[in-house]
């Protein structure tokens, strides 16, 4: 197996900060994200529709693609053994071409469930300038030891 990053639950403490991730958003970012999620709605590729029908200033990122960005941010930190259990996010405002969105995260809770699975709760903020258009709370399973692997958990051993 290729050497893969390994973050253990014991390496993490409440209050730990995840490294920030700045992303320059272009029209391509928005449109590629919409197509990758099979979202054909025009407000994600048609400026005229977005401005004159939706009343927004430009095309804007779609929700499923933002979920993919959150996942990428979280697993960049956890490495491939990190297994997402749950993710909740809110769109307060849209993200447009020309924006630089910056992901930042904080570990807010650590726990081990009754099946022995170690969980980290992460609060992720996305900022654009001085605004925070969206944030996310995620629950991600981390290995307890080098020979533990949350992906092997099945049925009642997986309680996301």
């Amino acid at each position, binding site marked *: *197996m*290729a050497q*893969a990053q390994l973050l253990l639950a014991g390496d993490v403490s409440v209050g730990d900060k995840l490294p920030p991730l700045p992303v320059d958003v272009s029209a391509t*970012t928005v449109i*590629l*994200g919409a*197509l*990758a*999620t*099979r*979202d*054909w709605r025009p407000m994600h590729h048609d400026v005229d529709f977005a401005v004159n*029908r*939706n*009343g927004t200033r430009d095309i804007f990122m779609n*929700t*499923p*693609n933002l*979920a*993919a*960005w*959150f*996942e*990428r941010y979280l*697993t*960049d930190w956890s490495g*491939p*053994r990190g*297994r*997402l*259990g*749950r*993710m*909740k*996010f*809110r*769109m*307060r405002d849209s993200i447009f071409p020309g924006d630089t969105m910056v992901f930042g995260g904080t570990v807010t809770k650590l726990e081990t469930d009754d099946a022995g699975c170690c969980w980290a709760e992460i609060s992720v903020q996305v900022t654009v300038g001085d605004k925070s258009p969206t944030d996310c709370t995620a629950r991600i399973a981390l290995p307890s030891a080098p020979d533990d*692997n949350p*992906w092997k958990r*099945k049925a009642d051993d*997986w309680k*996301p």
Partner: protein
Amino acid sequence: MTKTTTTTTELPEEVKSWIGQVRYEEPTEFEVERGYIFTSCASVQNGNPLYWDEAVADELTDGITAPPTMLSAWFRPHYWAPGRTKEAQPLQVHFDLKETLGLPEAVMTDNEIVFGVPVRPGDRLRTHQILRSVSDLKTTKLGTGRFWVIEVQYLNQNEELVGTESYTGFGYGRNA
């Protein structure tokens, strides 16, 4: 959408009847496949070796899986297909609400996803939608309309739950 005002108005009986009802049980239009997995990873520059390195995937996940957040992508209909006379809509309950409530515009505000059994290339997923709630009329900076919550459950060909997604939408008419 932080400043809102609320007006209590009765929901149409048809919409009330949808709340809690399992609707639009349907299979996805195609099998889970790796091309879309690459496209999804490329769209967010996700270098997780689970999706690029088969040796890592074999060891950690018993083979290639799809990024969990791709769930909704698998059930979105083709933009066009032979014999289709009108555009098929994903999350049809959302569009039913827009039409029945006379709210021409809509945005999604909240999204919660719970991930179950991993999704793999070759899987045939099925979904259904359940309307959980519809709010009173509210006025936000976008316009006047209603918030609603729709839950989508996803199962694989082995009847295993691969995920549950909950969407909060706001359907509205733009303020004059």
